[in-house]
């Protein structure tokens, strides 16, 4: 007779919930950027309204992790998986918070004339969401090669951020009446840049989960 460990069922549920949270977070980021680029404040408000669900998912995963540790006493790779899930969850929640901040900026910016066509910001956001997607795939499959590859991609976001930063500062200096809007866009850029850093953290946890190696702070 085939037997299944009770733990496996818990780990499957935990994995599913983390992936659901990851999916919701990715959607929030894409919708917030859509709201900004397409000047759709209704979409921005949807992102804000959806944040409660993300917060509840975070709490649910916290409880699942605690219960699994308390009731199943996972060891070795199982323990590393639960610890990684417990650490990835608040990271995803924070990414969703950044998406909300982008949505709030969009609502304010949409009430005013557009400063200039958005080119670099959507590219940055596209890059960040694609990294997030790949990071969640790596986490699911435990593929450390792809997790490490995602970490490398964060440099591209940093490059675009630096360029956006320079452009916007220059605009504020040369056209002081744009300062309020430019400052908001600067914050949007910063939010996306931070998301890139958080995705890197997720990938580092995937490496820990699979190889039991701490690569965080290794540079």
């Amino acid at each position: 007779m085939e037997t299944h460990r009770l733990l496996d069922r818990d780990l499957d549920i935990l994995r599913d919930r983390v992936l659901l949270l990851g999916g919701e977070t990715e959607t929030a980021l894409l919708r917030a950027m859509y709201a900004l680029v397409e000047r759709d404040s209704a979409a921005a408000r949807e992102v804000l309204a959806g944040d409660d669900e993300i917060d509840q998912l975070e709490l649910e995963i916290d409880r699942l992790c605690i219960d699994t540790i308390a009731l199943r006493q996972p060891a070795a790779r199982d323990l590393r998986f639960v610890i990684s899930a417990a650490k990835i969850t608040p990271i995803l929640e924070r990414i969703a918070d950044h998406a909300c901040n982008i949505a709030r900026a969009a609502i304010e910016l949409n009430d005013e004339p557009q400063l200039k066509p958005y080119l670099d910001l959507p590219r940055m956001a596209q890059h960040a969401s694609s990294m997030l997607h790949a990071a969640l795939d790596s986490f699911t499959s435990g593929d450390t090669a792809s997790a490490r590859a995602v970490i490398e991609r964060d440099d591209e976001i940093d490059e675009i951020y630096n360029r956006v930063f320079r452009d916007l500062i220059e605009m504020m200096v040369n056209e002081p009446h744009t300062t309020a809007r430019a400052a908001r866009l600067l914050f949007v850029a910063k939010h996306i840049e931070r998301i890139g850093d958080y995705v890197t953290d997720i990938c580092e946890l995937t490496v820990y989960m699979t190889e039991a190696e701490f690569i965080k702070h290794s540079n």
Partner: protein
Amino acid sequence: MSTSTPIPTVNQTTSHARASVADAPRASSEAMPPKINVANLDFFYGKTQALYDITLDVPPRQVMAFIGPSGCGKSTFLRTLNRMNDTIPGTRAVGRVMIDGQDIYAPGTDVVALRRKVGMVFQKSNPFPKSIFDNVAYGLRINGMSSSKNDLEARVEKALQNAALWTEVKDRLKTSALGLSGGQQQRLCIARALAVEPEVVLMDEPASALDPIATQKIEELIVELKRQYTIVIVTHNMQQAARVSDMTAFFWLGKLVEVTPTEKIFTNPNEKLTEDYITGRFG
């Protein structure tokens, strides 16, 4: 049991074991010679081989836990460390077991002195049907280890204190040991083992028959005792191994698969076989 996982060869095992011992972060006594040094030990019950080429060092004043499924040889191996298997007819040990650099299987070894130095506590508490005092005093008397009545009393008290039992029994030392609770009886057996001033204490599932509170007391005692003694414990309770031991050795089918610092074996064991066992993936 069926598993597709190959058994690591003994050479892999010992190289891992040695590397792990050397890497042990808690091994403050790293530079000190091992208290127990076992090399290439085979053990037989008649024609049946129970242990295969075990090579293992136990550092002084640490707790080493032996884990593994039933029948893997961990209790047999524990009992080779003070020649308790000698009492079973037809058994045979081949290889070397050194304690403090002395081969305990060398001809002319004083087995009584060996067992005084390497005490043992069993799964089921086995107090003599005597008073609490006489249980602890027993070994001291037969070994002629006390110079006077006062000295005997002092040694009994010290042993009971070391076993964390003194305050519970000091007012009823002359009553029968059989009136104690299971957990107290087990600590009495530990006191009896400690009374003759051993240097190594072997424990074969010492808490498996106890409730959680008595188990906790035994575990706290083990951690306390390692300040003075080298302790080797066989346990089926992996959380217990995790809680009390500095090093954990995993046995399977009579072979030592790996010996690794406890925090490592429970987070990232060297061998897949070990990981499959501690995560319950066997079978």
